[in-house]
């Protein structure tokens, strides 16, 4: 069936009105303007944000530049503090390594037999350590490699007979001396103390014409330990403080 063509419309196109309340001829320019305004606002916000970020960056850069000097100063102070702390630690180690001999000498006078004359009491220095690495090749170490120093005390003197010396050696085995001196009498032990280096007759004669005997005895002492003193527990420290007060 062909198209009928029966629309006998008496209206012209120009007389047809739009039923839409939104008219394109009005809304298009309005929407365009709104879109432009929106874009402008958006760009303005972007530009503002960019400006803010740039300002923040420059202020941060200035701040960092200002703090670099302080930072270097702090680093130097930290280095100095570390050095001081190392010195303090060293001093503390030395303090901990201190062996007191005064009390022992004072007691020594009390137990000294009549017929014994001490000619020399010597606590010798440690021989210099070998700082070279094993095999002797390479650079030597900067400082001592060990933290323990062996200490010894040599008693040299004169006597008229053997008995007073033996009496002295027995006296030195008392607890007042063994906190300083080490006594190991077992002959199978590798390091026996005291060690009698010599016990011989002196060539000179005494005033009464009697012959004198020279002796040289070495006692091993408690070693010097270069370590920090272990921190005492808080409870123990408090108890100790209470005990001191009671006393």
């Amino acid at each position, binding site marked *: 069936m062909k198209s009928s063509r029966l629309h006998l*419309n008496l209206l012209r196109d120009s007389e047809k*009105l739009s039923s839409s309340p939104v008219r394109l001829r009005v809304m298009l320019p309005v929407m365009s303007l709104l879109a432009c305004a929106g874009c402008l606002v958006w760009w303005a916000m972007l530009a503002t944000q960019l400006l803010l970020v740039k300002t923040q960056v420059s202020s941060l850069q200035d701040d960092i530049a200002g703090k670099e000097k302080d930072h270097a100063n702090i680093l130097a102070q930290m280095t100095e503090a570390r050095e001081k702390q190392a010195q303090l630690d060293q001093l503390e180690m030395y303090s901990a390594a201190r062996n007191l001999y005064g009390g022992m000498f004072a007691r020594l006078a009390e137990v000294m037999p009549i017929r014994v004359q001490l000619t020399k009491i010597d606590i010798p220095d440690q021989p210099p350590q070998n700082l070279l690495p094993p095999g002797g090749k390479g650079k030597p170490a900067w400082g001592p490699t060990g933290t323990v120093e062996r200490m010894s005390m040599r008693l040299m003197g004169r006597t008229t007979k053997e008995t007073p010396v033996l009496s002295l050696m027995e006296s030195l085995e008392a607890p007042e001396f063994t906190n300083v001196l080490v006594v190991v009498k077992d002959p199978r032990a590798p390091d026996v103390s005291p060690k009698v280096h010599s016990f011989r007759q002196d060539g000179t004669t005494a005033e009464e014409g009697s012959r004198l005997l020279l002796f040289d005895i070495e006692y091993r002492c408690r070693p010097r330990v270069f370590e920090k003193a272990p921190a005492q527990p808080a409870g123990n420290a408090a108890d100790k403080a209470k005990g001191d007060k009671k006393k």
Partner: protein
Amino acid sequence: MQIQLTKTKTIEVKLPFGGGGGGGGKSRRRGPSDVVGVEFGSGDPRGCPAVRLTRKKGRLHVYAAGFVKPPEGEIPQSWEELSKQATWSLPVDFQAPGAALAVSTPDMFLRQTTPDALTADSVSAPKAALEQPGRKKIGLKSLKSEPAPAAGPAGKTPAPPAGVATSNNGTRFVVQPLADESFIVESGMPEYQVLWLSRLLPEGKRPTAVSVQAYNAALLSSVLNQPEFVEADGNALVLFMTRESVFFAGYQEGRLLLLRECPGAQGHVFMRETVKKRLGLDEEMVDSVLNESLIDPTPVLEPFARPILQQLEISMDYLSRRHALKVDKVFLLGLPSGAQYWSKMSEDALKVPLITPSTFAGMELPAKGSRVPEMDAAQSQVFLGAIGAAVAAMEVGE
């Protein structure tokens, strides 16, 4: 495509792929898919018949049908009354984007004529008739009509392009060629009435007028979607019975081939009054008598129907001889009651029954029944003009 340069100069641009051209070669596109057809000036006490049609997947759907309250103002009868512009607001169910108005006024016309006769009419029109009083600017729109068609080289006025509303002698008219191209169909009404109707439905609110058609012209499209019409490949003769006139329309392959008004025949209002008087019935009984078989009103109807059936026979004979169109189906549309008696009389006289289908036949009705009142085929005839206007507006967008 025509571009108007000035008031008097117009150029025509022909675009490839059929994008240009004017007149009969004008490109056609599908019209709107949601239109409310309203019969304006029906005289029905219930209101103006209105039908809202939508097109979905090539099928027409009836969204709503009913009667709407007419506008407050009266259609102008002169240019002076044009300033009394009324506005009209339709109920929600009928607020389609576009409205097609089928206007029934005494001044409208629909006729078959020839291009030569149309040209002669426009040449003989006195120029003074163009200068109508009151043709001045009212509101936002200029009321100036188009100038009269310029005379051609031979002194003849060229025929107006088909399907384009044209003004002449204070009358707005539009023509369309028939299937037989030597004839045209012309429809029109006074220009001031068209202008008034164009602004009856205000801008920016649904609906607005997309089509203003004479009522009789709108009827021509009302049959196009009838299933039996489609089944007959658009070859049919339709007897349109309006309130005050009767006319035939012959279709060949869906195109109008013949348009003839029955001379001396009056519409169904006169017929109804005659039955009422002759049988001594009151107003309520007339429809009962015409729709039921208790009383046979054939003797009363026969004097009324005889000349019309004679004209029907002449028309069928004309179509058969002149166009070799053998019409098998004859429709009787627009008659609200008594169609079965007309069919019987036609069958007795011409051996051709008259088909009176529901005007909504061939369309999908809404599932929600409240939007369309329940009615039988005879009662649905009152919506014929509204449906025809909407179908015509949806058929072709201009």
